[in-house]
């Protein structure tokens, strides 16, 4: 479904991505890990049109994504969240999700007043567990709830591919657990790529992992394979092999 070939991104002479190949088949929940500066977020930026690669191709289904505008890529069915969640604080939770869900309507039809709640919005509220908060202004939500709202906004758009950039950063243990379960459920009927730092989270919820290092794909495989790989232990975990992905006490 998503296929990146030899993608290169250069920022002022610095190679943020240095020939990345990545294939994510339909229906997969893929985790993207790597030390700081490995190029994880840059990769997401390339897929979603925020950053233009210097070379390489990004294919999504039969579409070439390179050179398309951000909103056009969203319209092809690629949704993303950001590390720092941005929700519209002056609007209610419901209005946030409804706005996300309405993106395929022509502009003039938006001028009519909203009546009722559409199926896609109901579903997004239910899946993210935000029904009770629907009429609250998004400005009063906790950090965790904001992230769920962002994911809910994505779901309401019924994308084919979801890109989540550190969805559990800054969350409490309880919230992490809920987010993990939410991701697993979403992955049942979506293709999902998650950028994550949190090892514990990875071990619990990941199946396939791609490790990036210095702008290249280092290893790809199951959590066990990846965490057993000596190269990963060296570059990603440094000398502290005891902290390695799979074998914490």
């Amino acid at each position, binding site marked *: 479904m998503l296929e990146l070939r030899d993608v290169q991104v250069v920022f002022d002479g610095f190679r943020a991505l240095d020939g990345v190949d990545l294939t994510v088949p339909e229906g997969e929940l893929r985790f993207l890990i790597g030390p700081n500066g490995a190029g994880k977020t840059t990769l997401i930026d390339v897929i979603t049109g925020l950053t233009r690669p210097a070379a390489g191709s990004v294919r999504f289904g039969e579409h070439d994504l390179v050179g398309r*505008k*951000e*909103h056009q890529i*969203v319209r092809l069915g690629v949704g993303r969240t950001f590390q720092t969640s941005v929700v*519209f604080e002056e*609007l209610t939770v419901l209005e946030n999700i409804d706005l*996300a869900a309405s993106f395929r309507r022509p*502009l003039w039809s938006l001028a009519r007043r909203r009546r009722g709640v559409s199926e896609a919005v109901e579903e997004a509220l239910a899946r993210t567990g935000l029904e009770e908060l629907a009429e609250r202004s998004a400005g009063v939500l906790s950090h965790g709830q904001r992230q769920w709202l962002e994911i809910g906004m994505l779901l309401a*758009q019924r994308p084919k591919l979801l890109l989540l950039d550190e969805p559990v950063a800054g969350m409490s243990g309880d919230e992490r657990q809920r987010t993990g379960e939410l991701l697993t459920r979403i992955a049942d009927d979506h293709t999902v790529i998650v950028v994550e730092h949190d090892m514990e989270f990875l071990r619990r919820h990941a199946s396939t992992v791609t490790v990036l290092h210095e702008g290249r794909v280092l290893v790809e495989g199951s959590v066990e394979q990846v965490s057993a790989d000596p190269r990963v232990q060296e570059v990603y975990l440094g000398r502290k092999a005891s902290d390695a992905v799979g074998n914490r006490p």
Partner: protein
Amino acid sequence: MIRMLRRNLPFATVAVIALVAAPLLLEPFRLGLLAKYLCYAIVALGIGLVWGKGGMLTLGQGVFFGLGGYSMAMYLKLTEAGGGLPDFMVWSGVEHLPALWVPFANPVFALVMAVLGPMLIAVILGTLVFRQRVRGAYFAILTQALAAAMVILLVGQQGLTGGTNGMTNFFELFGQDLAEDSTQRLLYLAVAVVLGALYLATRQLVNSRYGRLLVAVRDGEDRVRFLGYDPALVKTVTFALSAGMAGLAGALFVPVVGIISPALLGVVPSLELVVAVAVGGRHVLAGAVLGAVVMGYAKTAFSEQFADGWLYLQGALFILVMTLAPKGVIGVMGRLRRARTT
């Protein structure tokens, strides 16, 4: 039903005062002044939409107001001249009616141009500027430069526009004598009805999904892009709507006040309207309208007493509002009402 009535009660009250009480109670001169303020209020409504809701600080609404005003003035001048040349052209030594002027002999064309002309300019400017992601202060400065350029253009084309003096001496509109009180009263009613209708339409728009989208673009343009919307399009459309309103206001202003000149649409009048919207309360449409009327009255009343003091008072008011009551008069009123009920 009752909720709808209660929701619309303030609007209905104001409408009755404006349409019934004011024409009965005010002497013709005062009614004429009110008509002028209501014209400004139409521009202010557009500013409330584009700035208050959309976050685009436009300092050049005078340009659109002027385009509307000049369209109407050209029509009035041509009916005046009755097939000949308008008076100021004769004085400037123009011998043939310029081609630009010819279609404006038709009142429908003039009125349509008064609205579509400004919208077209706004669409062109918006497309160029918003696509390049120019925003904030840069956009404000750009619109202000446009206002300054417009004045230079108008002043420079003496034979085409009447130069610094602009155009005046209008005697009739659609066959009605403009000097008659009855005509002026009708004009006042027309302005009030247009303002009321535009207010309701704009309020509807703001409460729709489009209004939510506009607020979203204001608060997180980049995020909106990743929701699959094109913020540049949303901004351009909104800017064009506000320009159309300003144009219509200009077209109404000319027969009401009897003059249009560069001094009425340059940088200073454009700024004054933005100040009025800020004072009234830019986050609420009613605040923008209220601000324009209140500041209009204040300007007249104050200038009648102290000729030069107004500028200082206006500046002081602006600073006061910005520091003490950023939500303007409407915000203060809301706070007082809440304080009373709790």
